[in-house]
């Protein structure tokens, strides 16, 4: 993509590195002090971050029927979502939720590149908030750089203490907010202020405190460069049809400063080499080198460039959301001509259908029946054949009740033995009991016949579960 790269003989290994030589990769040696500039993408980023992460802080305090509305109750192996309770047996739906999330990431990335990284990712969001605080306390990037190199004095100490205290508070709140998704929020606060959290609670809050403080306060864009796997994965999901913040090199090159008199040199491009795009970049990359690993596609350079273009009376959009095809003058393809996106979308739809099916078919009871394998059947003294079944009944409601066992199919005149007294099931727990089915030998026609068991709540036939097993007899 870089037009300045001098073409060498193809086949030479060193050509691989031509492009690399023109790039500077910040490996943490310098702190990026990005300039904050208002604009469309700045506003969008602010709102997107808040829309996604404010609920992270607030939702756990929401109550529903006297309980926490959304709670991943690890202690009791349950997930509460308003009036819905999901037990571990139904947690397969979570894998579909994760699949939807992953595929949404893929689909969005293939259409509009790293939208997640630029506007939603916690690393981006927290870093942005941290640097906002830094900006408010220590001043603009120039002032911050000056403060960095200034000797320690009272003013520097004061600013630094305030900044780090605020950072620490956010980090602490992050740890607390994460924790209360898994335990009762108010109970947690109560234990926290009384220093009575269990060890695991302290470990989690400590990890999140340091994680947030270090990742958002110090590592920042280094996380995206060297720690985050998604930054790498998402790169391979974009192609020449993907729109992403792009420097229009056909319009901008050759770049050059405007001369004193306001007259640009003839043939000079629109880029006046003002470096505003680099200065506002939170990861410190130069977008004019083309799409690159460090670019989180947050669009802040577009805001910056548009302001400059307005000032020099050039049309906006020297840096804009554009695809490589568009830039190289190829006709833009339609969405349905983008099979990659269609595949992602269909996976999303299938997974969503699975979740809907799961939620509507969850039932309030689960029944699993294992037929005894050894022996498959027993001949009784009166010549009848008896089979043994291991019942496992999971009561997913919130009360205890006894269940009635009936069966359909099987053998004529069969008798169910062992559940003359309806077995007890406790809520949220699995009850297991043994059921025998005895049938007259004369009525057994096939050596294996299906038998469908039905287990229903003693006084409410609407709460039930069914399971098909087999009745075994001697080979005829």
């Amino acid at each position, binding site marked *: 993509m870089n037009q300045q790269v001098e073409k060498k003989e193809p086949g030479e290994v060193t050509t691989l590195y031509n492009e690399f030589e023109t790039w500077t990769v910040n490996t943490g040696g310098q702190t990026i002090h990005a300039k904050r500039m208002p604009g469309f993408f700045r506003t969008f980023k602010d709102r997107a971050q808040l829309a996604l992460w404010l609920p992270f802080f607030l939702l756990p305090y929401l109550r529903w029927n006297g309980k926490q509305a959304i709670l991943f109750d690890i202690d009791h192996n349950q997930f509460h979502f308003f009036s819905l309770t999901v037990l571990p047996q139904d947690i397969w739906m979570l894998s579909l939720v994760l699949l939807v999330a992953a595929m949404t990431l893929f689909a969005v990335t293939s259409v509009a590149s790293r939208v997640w990284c630029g506007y939603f990712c916690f690393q981006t969001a927290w870093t942005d908030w941290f640097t906002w605080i830094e900006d408010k306390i220590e001043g603009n990037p120039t002032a911050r750089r000056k403060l960095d190199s200034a000797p320690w004095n009272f003013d520097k100490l004061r600013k630094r203490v305030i900044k780090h205290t605020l950072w620490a508070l956010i980090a602490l709140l992050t740890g607390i907010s994460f924790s209360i998704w898994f335990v009762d929020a108010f109970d947690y606060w109560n234990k926290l202020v009384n220093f009575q959290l269990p060890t695991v609670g302290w470990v989690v809050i400590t990890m999140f405190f340091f994680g947030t403080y270090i990742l958002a306060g110090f590592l920042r864009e280094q996380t995206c460069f060297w720690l985050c796997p998604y930054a790498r994965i998402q790169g391979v999901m974009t192609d020449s049809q993907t729109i992403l913040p792009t420097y229009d090199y056909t319009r901008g090159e050759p770049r050059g400063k405007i001369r004193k008199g306001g007259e640009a040199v003839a043939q000079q491009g629109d880029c006046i080499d003002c470096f505003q795009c680099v200065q506002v970049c939170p990861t410190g990359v130069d977008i004019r080198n083309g799409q690159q690993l460090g670019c989180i596609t947050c669009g802040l350079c577009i805001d910056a460039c548009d302001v400059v273009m307005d000032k020099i009376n050039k049309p906006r959009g020297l840096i804009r959301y554009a695809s490589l095809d568009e830039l190289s003058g190829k006709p833009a393809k339609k969405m349905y001509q983008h099979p990659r996106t269609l595949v992602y979308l269909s996976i999303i739809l299938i997974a969503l259908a699975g979740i809907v099916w799961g939620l509507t078919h969850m039932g309030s009871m689960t029944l699993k029946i294992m037929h005894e394998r050894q022996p498959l059947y*027993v001949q*009784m003294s009166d010549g009848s054949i008896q089979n043994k079944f291991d019942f496992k009944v999971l009561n997913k409601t919130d009360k205890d009740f006894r269940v009635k066992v009936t069966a359909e199919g099987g053998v004529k005149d069969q008798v169910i033995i062992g559940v003359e007294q309806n077995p007890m099931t406790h809520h949220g727990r699995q009850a297991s009991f043994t059921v025998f089915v005895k049938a007259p030998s004369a009525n057994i026609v096939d050596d294996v016949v299906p038998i469908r068991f039905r287990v229903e709540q003693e006084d409410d036939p609407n709460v039930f579960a069914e399971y098909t097993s087999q009745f075994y007899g001697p080979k005829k």
Partner: protein
Amino acid sequence: MSDKHDASSVPTTGHVWDDDLGDYINQPPKWWMLGLTASAIWCVVYFLYYPSIPLSNGGTWFKGLGGWTAITEMEADKSVVDEVRGKYEAKLKDMTPAAILADSELTEYVTRSGKVLFGDNCAACHGQNGVGTHDKFGLFAPILNDDDWLFGGTIDAIHETIAGGRQGMMMAHADMLSEAEIDTLANAVAAGKPTSTPLFAEKGCTACHGEDGKGMQAMGSANLTDSVWRFDSSVEGIKYTIKHGVNAGTPETRVAVMPAFQGGKLSDAEIKKLAVYVYKFGGGQAQ
């Protein structure tokens, strides 16, 4: 964590291999040195904390400052399991087998935990899950999950059988009955109607197997009218049983001995658990 200095500005060791290979005398990175030092410290602490140094005198060894041994760790692990089982075991210690059976929670515990006990002590003859085992003479040890019981299928009878053992006896009739009589009797028994021949009463079979041929649980004589067979359901097999008897002391006789498990082999609690376990196979009978 970048290496800030230029690696190639330091001198080499001076030794050159293969014309142009040299070795810079760079210091390893700081983080790496820290890791190395920390590992060394860890080694020493580990060495001191755990048993480590074998001593030459009498096969002893340095016991370690932490007092750790594999056996105490195993005991600790075991105590976790024992704690879970403890409340059940304490409860059923003083209960009769019938009382255990009446308690659904204890019964559940026994049927879940009895598998090992049954496997270790009973399955050799009765087969896994009590399906019985066969030898060349027919069924070697009775099937335990049907409802036919030589000595009774109530919980107390089963408990008594396991505790005291059982040994039924049937005389060898080879010298007392003619071949024709044996043949008649065997065919009648095979058909499930022993009383259909007058020989059954005349030859004294009723003394043990009862007037109706249904056996007597007090002496462990088999019910000859039902569908469950102790040894062999074929006419030849039945003739063999009539000829040579059971536990009759001759070399040909059928052997059927249930050993006693009380008094050493198993504890009282274990016998009670086994009684309930066997009862729950599916053939247990109400008192």
